[in-house]
Each structure stands twice: as structure tokens, then as C-alpha cells.
């Protein structure tokens, strides 16, 4: 402004040149700033550890769908949470975590996600609300609890021997070494007597399956769901096979990450379908 005022009043063409250059810069920076927020898409990724009323985080994926122009200084905000993407190359995606606390279990709507950027110059901040699905599955708030009746609570996992190949059961057979075999399975004494390496094949140790019955827990519905959610997470972490009985629905016991998600999902959506 000052330079423009000086240029007009002095008629000095060198000042006009400078003012023109800065006008040009303002024009091109405005255009670049506007383009910086275009053709960006955002995806909220499914979370497997988001519990009601507990601090958690949501992973979002920002994709730059432009062909030439990178995206710079993109701030992602949802409620009070924010994350920064400094540089995102054209055609590339990147993921960021947004800390959240969801009040209730079930399918919950994440606060509107806004992107804003001060690029290229920090005089103006442009922002844009990102469209798209923001539905999240929130599991019940875990409440520490013992198993109804106290059975199996603190017993170690190795109780049943399964007739499946494993690393911690009884010896099944002695075989020749294959590349997929772990080194610790090599039987060194036997190998010394043969021309090739020999490995021990063992059975797998398992634990007895458990079926959690929601009705066997005491307290309000939310408390009982919370206790079930706590036990599901804890028992599956102990490699136990856990099932669930919800009213007339029975989910067979199994172990592993998928089973955990399945059970927690059922608990999250109990009575909310």
C-alpha cells in the first residue's frame, strides 16, 4: 500500500515496477493458495481400538489427487484435534492420527473435518470442509472385571494340546530343515549325525475356550457391556479362545485379532442396530 501510494504520487516508474511485481506476487500467491486446497480427498480409516469415553485416535488418510501441484502445509482439524501434513506430492497419500474422545459406543459421527492452510504466505488462511463419511465404530468403555464365577481367570494359556503344528507342544516328528523353519527348531545333535539339518516338529498348545454371557454379569447394561469388552480384550491378549452369548445369539469361541474385533463390534452395536 505504502509503495503504491508512493508510486502514484511520485510517478516514479521504478516504484511502479516494484508495486507491479508485488501485485503480480499477490495474484499468483492467491491462485496457488486456492489451488493448494483443491482436489484433496480425505478418508477416515476404521479404528480397532477406539473405546467410548477413553482417549483414542482416529487415522485419516489425505490424498493429493492433483497431477502436478504438491499440497503444502495442510492442517487437518476435527473438533479440538489437529494434525499437519507439511508436503504431499501429487498423486500421493499420507496418514495422520487425530486424537479423539468419543462419548458413546456404537456407530458415532466424527466431528466435521476441516482442512486449512496458510500456504504460500502467512497473510491469509484458507480453509475447506472435507466431505465424506466420518462414521466410526466405537467400542464400549472397558470396565475392569473378573470372569463370572472366577473360573480360568488367572490360569496360564497352555492347557490344551492341539494336534496342529506349533512351537510349544509335544514333539510330533523330526524332519529335514526347510527355509521356512525357525532356526531355533533345528535339532543340533541330530543334525550332527546327518548330512543335512534336522528340525523338531512340535504340536501347538491351546487354551480352553470361554463363552462370555452378558446376562451373567451384574450391573447396568453399559457396565455389563464394558466388562465384556474388557474381558474380550484381555483374554484374547492371553491367546484364549473367547465366544460371546448375547441374548439368543451365540458367537462361537475363537482367538485372534479378527475374533476380538468381531466380539467388540457385537458389543458396541448391542441394542443399537
Amino acid at each position, binding site marked *: 500500500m*505504502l*509503495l*503504491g501510494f*508512493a*508510486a*502514484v*504520487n*511520485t*510517478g*516514479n*516508474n*521504478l*516504484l*511502479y*515496477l*516494484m*508495486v*507491479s*511485481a*508485488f*501485485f*503480480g*506476487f499477490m*495474484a*499468483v*500467491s492467491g491462485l*496457488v493458495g486456492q489451488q493448494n486446497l483443491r482436489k484433496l*480427498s480425505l*478418508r477416515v480409516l476404521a479404528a480397532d481400538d477406539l473405546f467410548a469415553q477413553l482417549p483414542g485416535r482416529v487415522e485419516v*488418510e489425505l*490424498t493429493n*489427487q492433483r497431477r502436478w*501441484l*504438491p499440497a*503444502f*502445509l495442510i*492442517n487437518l482439524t476435527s473438533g479440538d484435534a489437529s494434525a*499437519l501434513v*507439511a*508436503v504431499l*506430492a501429487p498423486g500421493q*497419500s499420507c496418514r495422520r492420527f487425530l486424537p479423539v474422545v468419543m462419548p458413546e459406543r456404537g456407530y458415532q459421527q466424527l466431528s466435521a473435518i476441516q482442512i486449512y492452510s*496458510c*500456504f*504460500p*504466505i*502467512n497473510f491469509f488462511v484458507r480453509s475447506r470442509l472435507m466431505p*465424506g463419511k466420518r462414521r466410526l465404530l466405537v467400542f464400549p468403555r472397558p470396565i475392569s472385571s473378573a470372569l463370572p464365577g472366577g473360573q480360568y481367570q488367572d490360569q496360564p494359556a497352555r492347557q490344551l494340546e492341539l494336534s496342529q503344528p506349533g512351537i510349544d507342544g509335544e514333539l510330533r516328528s523330526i524332519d529335514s530343515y526347510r527355509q521356512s523353519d525357525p532356526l531355533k527348531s533345528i535339532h543340533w545333535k541330530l543334525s550332527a549325525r546327518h548330512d543335512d539339518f534336522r528340525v523338531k516338529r512340535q504340536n501347538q498348545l491351546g487354551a480352553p475356550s470361554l463363552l462370555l454371557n452378558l446376562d451373567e454379569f451384574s450391573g447396568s447394561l453399559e457396565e455389563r457391556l464394558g466388562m465384556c469388552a474388557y474381558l474380550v480384550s484381555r483374554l484374547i491378549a492371553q491367546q484364549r479362545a473367547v465366544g460371546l452369548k448375547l441374548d439368543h445369539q451365540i458367537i462361537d469361541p475363537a482367538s485372534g485379532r479378527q475374533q476380538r474385533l468381531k466380539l467388540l463390534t457385537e458389543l458396541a452395536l448391542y441394542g443399537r442396530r
Partner: protein
Amino acid sequence: MVGVERILQILAYLAALIAVLPLLPFISVWIPMIVVAAGCLGLRGDFQGRYLLGQRSATLLAMIFMLQFVAQASLSNLVVPLINLLCLFLALRLAGEKLPRHILQLFLLSTIILAASSMLSLNLSYLLYLILMIMLVTAGLVLLSFYTTDSRLKLSRREWGLLLKTIAVLPSVSLILMLFFFIILPRTQTPLWNFLNPQPVAQTGMSDQVKPGSVTDLATNEQPAFRVESEQLPDDALYWRGIVLNKLEGQTWRRSGAVSKEEMVPDEGSEIELTFYAEPKIDRFLVTLDRPIEVQGIHHSQAGDSVMESRLKTSQPLSYKVRAQYRGSSRQSGGEHRYLGVPDDLSGRLKAVAEKISEGENFSAKRALLDRFFQQQQLSYSPTRLPQTERALEAFLFESRRGYCEYFASSYALLLRMAGIPSRLVGGYLGGTYNQIGGYYLVNESAAHIWVEALDDDGVWRRIDPSRLAINSAEALNLNSRNRISVFTAVVDAALHSWSRLVLNYDLHQQIGVVRNLFGKARQLKEFDARAWQPSAWFLAGLLPLGAWWLWKRRAARHVRLINSFRALMAKRLEIQPIGAEIGLYELAQRSRNPLCRTFVSLYGAAVYQDRALNNAEYRQLRRILRDLKRQPQNKSGRSKKAIRLKA
């Protein structure tokens, strides 16, 4: 990983350097020394993280500098104290801590100082400094936005590459847009603050009187007098007419205001249009090509003897157009006796020569006799050791026989008058250096010249250059016109000329001219002549295959195009925007539950996933499947939206 902060500091120091450099010839030496010392202090502080100059000390010093400025400044002495003050503020900022707002202040101060330097000099080097400053400031402002967002941000080499490419675009486009804004930004008829601008100092000009020795001083002055844009002219046509001196008083030729009207004797074949760009002068006479017919673009008056005079006296550079005929002349209509006056106290030797010349029967014979007399005298053309006595012309002709153009012209015209031939002196310039690159003549002050015009028997004024009768005229006179400048000199001078013509002299009149020109062009478009554009059309047609080849080279491989189309179609059908890289083709086909999709994926996978290129039959089949998929309505893709959501 390279931090943003360090690079930002370097840019700020460079901006300060660029701001101070153009000021060096104009400000006291201690100002740049203070700035450099402050820069060194600042650098030390940047590395150690501890600054000797605190915020309070800086504020106190700034107030002292301000008081000093108030004490020094006045309306007649404002610019230099103001620039000194700005430089001292810059030094304070350089020496102190560099928080984001301080770096912004550094860029701002540097920009203002560079702007202020235009109050001291209009040199072309300003453009270079301006371009550098724009690059530094734009890059600095962009990095500042990164620094403000996250001061600990570190970027990888690849991220720096992406950022630098984008940063490079900003000043480049800004400088292109600068040209556009420079043309359209509003200008005033008369600047209100013109006193702040550097005033051109006119030191030379055409005097309205000539006496022996008065032109000699200009012989060594190599300052440009004017530049003329025109086609290249014959060497003997390069007589630039300025003033006509028609009255002889003693040894001094003067211009008398009473000039009778002369009728132009045209020579259509030598008519030419020229554009003059004259440097500031102390007189109002406008230089033209001998003989001028018309002057445009400047308020002027035209005397009967084709002398043009500007109505306004200005110390600014002038530009005007001239239509002239270099073989043209004029016919005197009455008042010839005014051109016959001679002093009373002429010597016997001169009278004897004049009597001898008078024996000639007509103009040509008398002129031939006079020419022969000059040649017999073995006169040499020289700007040094010239006679400066009261009878300088007589001494020149008979004793020293050395003289400059005014000696030759004065004595020749005097003898013509004594022999009864009306004559006068014409002051102007001779020759010039043609700049092939710029397409203009550069005429220096050293080319100032005096020649004679004499009235022939038909009453027509004839140009006679007596200096050409000197024994060394070939070397002395034709030096300028035959002088060929080096390519480097030509480029530099063409750049200076363009700078002056396009930038420094651009004003409201030219702005209006540009608008008129645009309207004129728009009118011409209505009368579009296809034949005139034929060469351009052929050129573009020649470029088309190149463009097509470029696009062909850049296109993706055909299997990539197929799979992109397929994924885009699936994204639309399955309402997944966008489809992430983690969802494979087989999973997409499974999710779609569409047999066509499964066929497509299995056919594609069988070829591409086994490192085999698609053959033509497979390619055609895949395209057919895609076409069929696109034709299928969305609700027949195999399942309901609810099912898709559950699966997802």
C-alpha cells in the same frame, strides 16, 4: 533433513545485501559499514543463540537514529537522510534476534530500501536488484509460512525439491504479471511528489550563437545526445538539424527571430519517419533529420527555416516523431538580403579572396572557386591548437590552417556572403552509430557539428559542409558514421535504450496510447485478413505433429490406462472415493460380485501379473468388458448398497 529456520535467515541476510548494494555510490561509507558490522554480529548471534543487541537496546538506538534524522532532514534534503535512517533500522534488525516477525521486518525493510534507491538513481541495474529481491522475498515469505506453522519443521530432500519447484514458479509468474500491472496501473498527469525523484541534470544544449572555438568543447564529450529509431540511412544523409544561425555580428553568428517562410522542395524518395529520444538539454531546440517536414508527439513551433522549438522547457528526456526528407531542401521566398550581412571590419586578405570568388558566373562556379580555395589552403580538421584571436577566421584560413567545424563553416559562409551568395549556418549533429540490435542511431555530444546552407541561383537552399574540404576530413568526419560498435556494446546500449524508452519514459500519454492501440487492434480483428496470418498458421500447423508426438510419448501404457478406467468405474459403483492402494483388483472384483468384473480381473491378472504384456486380442476383450460394465446400470452390479457397506 534440512531445517527451514537456517535457510530463512540466509535469505534475510541476502535480501539486506541486495537492498544496500545499489545505494553504495550515493550514501556515506559508514552506513554500509554499520550494516555489514551488524550483519556479522547477527550471524554470530544466530550461531551461538545469544545476541549482543537486546530488544531494549535496539529500541533505544532506533529512537536516537530517528532523532538524528529529524535533525538532518528538510524538504530539500529528505531522500538521503531517510535512506540512511532505513539502513540503520535494517542494521538494528540484522544484529538482533530473528523471530518470524523480525524476519518479516527484515524483508520489508530491504524492500523499502530498494524502493527508496529509485529516488537516487534510475539505472538499469535496478531491474536486476528488483528481480533478485522479488525472488528472495517470495521464497522468504513462503518459508516463513512453514516456519510460523512449525518452527521445528525439517523437510526431506525430496520435500525440499517439491517446495523449491513451487517456490520457483511464484517469482517467475510474478515477474511476468509485473509487466501487465506496470502497463495498467493508474498514473497521474503530473506527479505530486516529483521533488522526490532524481532530477536529470542537463549540462549540454544548442547555443543560439556560434563563434570560433564554441563547439570545440563538445569534441571530447561522449555523453549520448539523442537516439533515433529509424532504418539505416546513407552516411551522407546523417545531418541532424537543430538550429539555424542567420545573423553574423563580428565573428559571432546568431539566430535572428525574423525568419521568412520557406517553401519545401520535396524529394519523395528520401522521405522517412523517425522517432527521437533526446536526453535532457538546457535549450528548447528539437533535433530533427535534415530536412524535417513535420514533428509529432510534442508541443512545438516550427520556424520558416525548419527549426523546431519545444513550447515547454523541461529537464526530462524527450521523445517525439519526425517526418523528414534527407534529400529535401527549401526555397526562399523573399528576404534574401538578410542572409548577406557581413561585418564592416573585414581584412584585405578576405576581401581579395571574396573578389576572386565573385568572378564566378553563377552559384556553381562561385562555389567551385571557393571549394578550390579551401583545398589550396590545405586546411586540417582538428579540435586542438585552434586560433582564438579577435581575427580567428583569418588566422584559421591563412596562418594556423587548423580548425574545427565552426571555423570551416563560419569562414565559408562569410566568404559566400562577401561573394554575394546568401548563406547561413546550421547547427546540429553529424553522423551517429547505428545499433543493429536496437535498430536506432546513437548520437553523442561529440558529434555536434556546424555546416552551411547557401542559396543557389534558383533560390533553393543547398547544404554545404565545408569541413569535408579539410585535408583530413575522411578520417575526422566520417569516423562516427563508419564506426562499428562491438556486439557487447550494442547489446548494452540497446538495453539502456529500451530501459529508458519502455520503463523510465512510460507515462500517462503512453498509457493512453497503449489503450488506443488495443482498440485499433480490436478494430483490425473485425477486418481479419486470413492471408496475413497464413505464415503463422503454417508455423502452428508444423508444431501440431510435435505436440501430438509429445502427448503420445507422455501417455500411460495401455494396460495402465485400462486398469485406471476399471478402478475409476469400481470407485463409482462401490462408492469408495478414492480407492486406496491397499484394495487390490481381485478384492474389488469380489466386492462388486459382478461376473464381468471377475472376468476382467482374471484376464488382466493372467497377463500382467505374470510379467507378460497384453496381446491385442486380450486388450480388445478387456476394453469390450469395460464398455459393457459402463453400460450396465448401477443397481445391476450384483448387490445392494447396504450389502456393499456391510462388506466394507
